[in-house]
């Protein structure tokens, strides 16, 4: 066995071996939302790649170099060969870093997932940008879009520096991010989605901006299976609003119903807009989430 000096850890978020493994994965976008810029994603529109896409009737002004002369010889009519266009895809990582995400290390897990997906995007020459909402004004902390593995260190430093806090609702953050973002692709929403705001509207905005929605809900075990008994006064971590609960132990069954219904509703919001939804627990190991769960769910390949 060869023993050498250990490689310095690139980030505190993920181990090097996990990073090296996610570098070999790529985000599996199903909607092919791409920008016109040249990239590695084949466009649905005609392009100049070597991959054949379709035929169409020749129209005046078309480049005769793309006429399929073999078809012309058989049918005596000119048909134009269409080729797929390889375009770049934006990977937008929206991290909910509000106070509610500080519970049960949800923010840490969100940053870890964002780091992994961001690395995947950079290694696949996609334009990766990050927006973190961690203040009351709703103005996101932003990492500008960039491509190439050379930006990996910058991405990781940015994510390491994201602090939690603030009480800005998720939809405010999404709107603020969309005001800054240009380009189509994939948006990964990393949040607990526990907001009173109008989430369908925010999802519509994302969809109409050409972003395929990847909603990842992060919940702590205390939210999935809370241990509450007797009469308690619940305090909202973000708004400091109070709610008195009597005989909390008896209400847990209904709580679980509403939690599952809420997840189903989020899943519906995403899938209706061609996206995906997944809910994970912060108790799940990061290896399992990145290398097993996301692959099985078709988020990455």
């Amino acid at each position, binding site marked *: 066995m060869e023993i050498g000096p250990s490689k310095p850890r690139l980030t505190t978020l993920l181990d090097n071996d996990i990073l090296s493994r996610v570098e070999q994965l790529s985000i599996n976008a199903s909607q092919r939302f791409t920008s016109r810029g040249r990239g590695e994603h084949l466009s649905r529109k005609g392009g100049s790649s070597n991959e054949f896409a379709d035929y169409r009737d020749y129209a005046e002004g078309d480049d005769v170099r793309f006429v399929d002369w073999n078809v012309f010889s058989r049918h005596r009519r000119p048909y134009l060969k269409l080729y797929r266009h390889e375009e770049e895809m934006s990977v937008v990582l929206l991290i909910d870093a509000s106070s509610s995400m500080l519970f049960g290390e949800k923010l840490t897990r969100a940053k870890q997932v964002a780091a992994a997906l961001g690395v995947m995007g950079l290694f696949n020459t996609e334009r990766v940008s990050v927006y973190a909402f961690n203040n009351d004004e709703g103005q996101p902390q932003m990492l500008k879009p960039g491509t190439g593995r050379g930006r990996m260190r910058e991405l990781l430093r940015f994510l390491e520096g994201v602090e939690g806090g603030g009480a800005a609702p998720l939809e405010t953050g999404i709107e603020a991010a969309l005001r800054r973002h240009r380009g189509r692709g994939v948006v990964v929403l990393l949040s607990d989605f526990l907001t009173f705001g109008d989430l369908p509207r925010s999802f519509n905005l994302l969809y109409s901006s050409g972003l395929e929605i990847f909603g990842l809900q992060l919940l702590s075990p205390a939210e999935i299976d*809370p241990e509450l*008994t007797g*009469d308690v*006064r619940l305090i*909202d971590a973000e708004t400091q609003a109070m709610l008195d609960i009597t*005989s909390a*132990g008896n209400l847990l069954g209904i709580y679980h119903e*509403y939690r599952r219904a809420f997840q189903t509703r989020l899943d519906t919001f995403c899938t209706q807009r061609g996206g995906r939804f997944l809910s994970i627990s912060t108790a799940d190991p990061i290896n399992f989430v990145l290398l097993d769960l996301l692959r099985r769910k078709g988020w990455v390949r």
Partner: protein
Amino acid sequence: MIPGFHALSSAWLFFLFIPVVLFYFLKLKRPRQEVPSLLLWRQVLQDQRVNSPFQRFKRNILLILQLLLLLLLVLAAMQPYWRGQASTIRRLPILIDTSASMAALDKAGGKSRLEVAREQVALMIDNLASDQELGLIAFGRTGRKLTDFTSNKRILRDALETLSVQDVPSDVEDGLRIAQALARSTPFDQAMLLSDGNFPMPERFDLPFKLDYRKLPGAGPNVGITALVAQRTGQEGWALFVSVETSSESPAGAAVELLRDGKPVQTADLTVTRGKAERLSFKFTLDKPASFEVRLKPDGFDSLAADNVAFIDLAPARSVFVYAAPECLAARAALAVQPGVRLFPEEGKAGPGDSRYDLVITNKLADASMTSPVFAFLGVVPEDLKPLVRLSKTPTSAIDWTRTAPLVAHVELTDLLVVNGSEVGQGVRDNDFENLSYEALAYGQHGPLILQKRDATRSAYFILFAPEESTFPYRVGFPVMLANLVQQAMQQAGLAETQGQTTGVLPPQHFLAESNYTIQSPDGQTWTEKSDARGMLAGVAANRVGRYKISGSGAADKSVGVGLLNTSETSLTGAEQIRFAEASVKAESTATLKIDRSYWPWLAALALTVLLVEWWYYQRRPGGYAA
């Protein structure tokens, strides 16, 4: 049934409902729990199920449980009870029979009658209200007050705990008289009698209060010795007669064993049927005093053990020692011809040695210092009677006499003429003699002619005329009366017929004068008694069957055995009705005894249960559906 409350004043505690409700809604101590978001919890609280009436009830179940807990505690503090018979009674004396038959068991290893009675009384004590008082009176051969009227349950329980069966016949009248005496100082309307009904009817007793007679359930079959009599046969021979009876409907077999000075000498088997006493006889001769013990061993279950043993002490046969004063010429002449009588003072001889006689006949009050169980004073008036009666010069004759009295049995006094008869003073009544413990056996025209005074150790007869100054010595009744005296002296000395010693009081014993003697009862208790100036140790209580050991100077570790020997106690029959002088009281079963039953301990226990349910309900692990 409407419950009553012993402490209705505690109802003011219901005002505690107000602060409980106030504190509940103020929720002063609701714990705070920070959560990421109230989103889901708000939806939960808006759910129709949560806001359904039942769920609203569940939401306030803590308040309801607290109010229920408080309600139970306040009700317990008010000391509710179901009204029974005793609810209207403020003061109740309870007479408890402790006679021998109360030791009878209902079955082998079962409960005695006294234990059943004790359980009933204990139940009454437990449910005694604070404004009610009980007084406990026990009666066997005599009655005794165990407690004054008190509501102190500890005192009552302690007294009840000390209660034990005495192996003596029952005398309910004595117990009732104690209750009557109590009523004079502390009035009450009703008394309760707990007994198996095995007692003689108090037909002379005027019941001054209402009596609730509770008859205890019957006991199992019993076989016992009911009589033990020894009779002299010939010069030195004795015959011992044993009577055995049973309370069982079916014939009962038993073995009888005779022990002489602790050693078995004879045995016999017998079968007893109810209503018919089975008699056995054992014959033997005696040349020295001996103690006999008869033991009965029933074949099957025997509910009462106290009547299975009897004792009798016998002395060798001898003549009756009679002292007749030389001045009593007629008496001496009559006694001289009586067979088996040795007359003192004899010509030129001293007395029997220690001045002890079986019978003393004299005309001098000073001779009362002699030692004898039977005295007959002729023509003298005792000192304590001199204010009431005197001997006059007025002639008189007998007008009436108690023919059943042993002294005048078969004695005809109709033609008796007395020259110097007795005469009572002005305003003297018959009960003035009774108050001084004298009983008139014969009356003359101006006052009593013959009086009897009995104490624990001897009987004294006072014939208030000199026989020589009457026609009495010339009548056949005179030698008959002297023969009755001799017969009585023989019985007292155990020379003619002797009964087995019975419980109650030990037979008088003659020891050294003014000396202390230690008595040890069969159950191991010891105490000291003092002999009187004549050396008589009398009045020693003997409430247990068995041998009593007497030790002290001159006693030489003497032991005296006593048995129950009571037909009534052995029969275990219980009266269904008590006949009093002017009324009768029917028996009620103890099963129908309605006792005020306090149920505040149940309410308190229920409150504790509610408290535990509340604790469990709110401290249990969170339930609900799986995640």
